[in-house]
């Protein structure tokens, strides 16, 4: 197969497997958070963005309202708009492809694409990772959701601990350097302080606004926090990240 000789396709396939597999944990945590099987599947099929999906079920599991869950998921999805802008400039999809490309625009497909330099490879990387992750993520969400509903008492299996670990796992790759760590600590503190005083779910939104204020008033890297959960080029050490603003900013 000629396609398999493309480095971007190979990276796209391996990232698809690595990311798709952890759909199992989303599926299992989805049904134990209080959602039913189809609600969990709807998130993977329609929302399709790991962080936002985990945020939605994380708020619901903590007793938060549907509005708060929607708020947290939506705020976490903002970065996908930034990715869309980058990818639109890079791949220039036309017609219906634009709408399809938008749906599979996530951390990993963006990182796979922007890690390549040749325009054809960028395209192949994006579509391989985007479609591959979409298919596997949904299959494994279903597997996890079915297994999760058969488990009985989720606490006995430590699934609430699994949720904590999943969020830390999503946060971890973004903590490169002192500044993101400081942002994380400040937001975690704001959350803990807010918990006793406001309804469940709201502390998370308060932390989001604290983080937005930090972003507005401080000047740091403009791609801070925009790292994929699974780095497609991890074995190639650090790849230079695509920064669409660097030329304009004259850096």
């Amino acid at each position, binding site marked *: 197969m000629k396609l398999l000789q493309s480095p971007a396709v190979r990276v796209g396939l391996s990232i698809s497997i690595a990311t798709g597999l952890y759909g199992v944990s989303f599926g299992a945590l989805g049904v134990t958070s209080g959602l039913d099987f189809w609600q969990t599947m709807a998130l993977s099929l329609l929302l399709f963005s790991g962080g936002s999906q985990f945020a939605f079920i994380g708020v619901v599991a903590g007793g938060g309202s549907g509005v708060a869950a929607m708020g947290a998921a939506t705020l976490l999805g903002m970065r996908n708009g930034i990715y869309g802008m980058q990818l639109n400039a890079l791949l220039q999809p036309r017609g219906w492809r634009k709408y399809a490309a938008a749906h599979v625009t996530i951390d990993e497909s963006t990182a796979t694409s922007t890690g390549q330099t040749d325009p054809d490879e960028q395209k192949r990387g994006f579509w391989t990772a985007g479609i591959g992750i979409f298919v596997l993520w949904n299959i494994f969400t279903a597997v996890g959701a079915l297994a999760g509903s058969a488990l009985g008492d989720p606490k006995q299996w430590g699934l609430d601990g*699994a949720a904590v670990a999943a969020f830390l796992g999503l946060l971890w790759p973004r903590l490169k350097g002192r500044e993101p760590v400081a942002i994380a600590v400040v937001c975690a503190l704001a959350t803990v302080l807010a918990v006793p005083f406001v309804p469940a779910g709201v502390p998370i939104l308060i932390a989001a606004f604290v983080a937005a204020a930090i972003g507005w008033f401080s000047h740091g890297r403009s791609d801070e926090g925009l790292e994929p959960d699974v780095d497609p080029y991890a074995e190639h050490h650090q790849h230079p990240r695509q920064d669409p603003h660097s030329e304009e900013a004259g850096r």
Partner: protein
Amino acid sequence: MNLWMWLLLACLLGYGWKLLGYLVPASLLRNPRMSRIAGTMTIGLLASLTIVNAVASGQALALDARIGALAAAGIALWLRAPFLVVVLAGAGAAAGLRLLGWS
């Protein structure tokens, strides 16, 4: 039904963000500040979700087996374990501590 409504709205808004990047002219969106806020907000939200799931029980704060899960996940990540192993470490720690009698 109510939860379905918020869930579908979340899906719609999530897709809206993604599509916005493709439809709005780049000149309007090419703003380092927007990109930076998207990033700091991602860090802040994930940090907040981590801590809420670790220590909050409704409107109360509680130190229970979930703290053990947080520590175990931290150690697994420090050792560069892949995501699924990190999640399993969290589940194992919480389940194990409960077996030992710590709720």
